[in-house]
């Protein structure tokens, strides 16, 4: 039986959205790590290692 649907652009859109969302999540984590490091540098805090 021949496929009745072949909407590749929907497939690429789905894969692209998932990839962008995950990259965005990691980027946000990285940004928060950097902000935290700046906060640590500018305040006399001691953290447990």
């Amino acid at each position, binding site marked *: 039986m021949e*496929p009745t649907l072949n*909407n590749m652009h929907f497939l690429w859109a789905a894969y692209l959205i998932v990839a962008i969302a995950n990259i965005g999540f990691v980027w946000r984590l990285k940004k928060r790590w950097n902000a935290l490091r700046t906060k640590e540098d500018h305040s006399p805090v001691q953290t447990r290692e």
Partner: protein
Amino acid sequence: MGRTFWILCGLSLVLLLIGTYEAIFVAPVEATMGSIYRIFYWHVPINISAEIFPYVNLLASVAFLFTRHTKPALASKLDALALATAEVTVLYVSLGLITGMIWARPVWGIWWTWDERLTSFLLLFLLYVSYLLVRQFSSNQSAIIAAVLSVFAGIDVPIVFMSIRWWRTQHPAPVLTGDGSLDRTMWPAFLLNMAAWFFWGCWLVWARYALAVREQEVEESIALNVVEA
């Protein structure tokens, strides 16, 4: 971060690359849907993972509620784990909903329908968004309120899982275990993506957990300095 953290990151990315290649170029074309069905190789693993992380959140939240007076150091770590799993759950559930809608439009002709699977999954999304809003905007009791909320979110997960077994839904019946089982040539791509998305989710939880713990330590330290000053 330790070595295991980066090994898990690398392993997840390698599995994702191989899994995606398998899903797009190796797995056979589905007889009726054509290539649009390949969304399945990301949609299903993301959704299965999105039903596992809420349980980690639930266990961590319940343990937090029981240990917050007796073992505050452990309770802080459990709270950080609950927060990390909640954020990753929101990410995964939203991606599950979006990929499902993108698949539904060409296959069903509609973006959305209020069937039991879709509605219960949307409810799970809303519950975890509420969880994060409570964490963000509530004052000193936010961790406790959020932990209680996570119990209700945990109740929704088995309803999501069983919805396509209990009711006749527009959403397809179980393809992994049901009558219309997956063709054996499709299993390698599915299993690779399943492992990839689960490990990637675990890595995200780990990264978010480490950040939450460090934030707690910094806040604690600043508070101590203020008291001492």
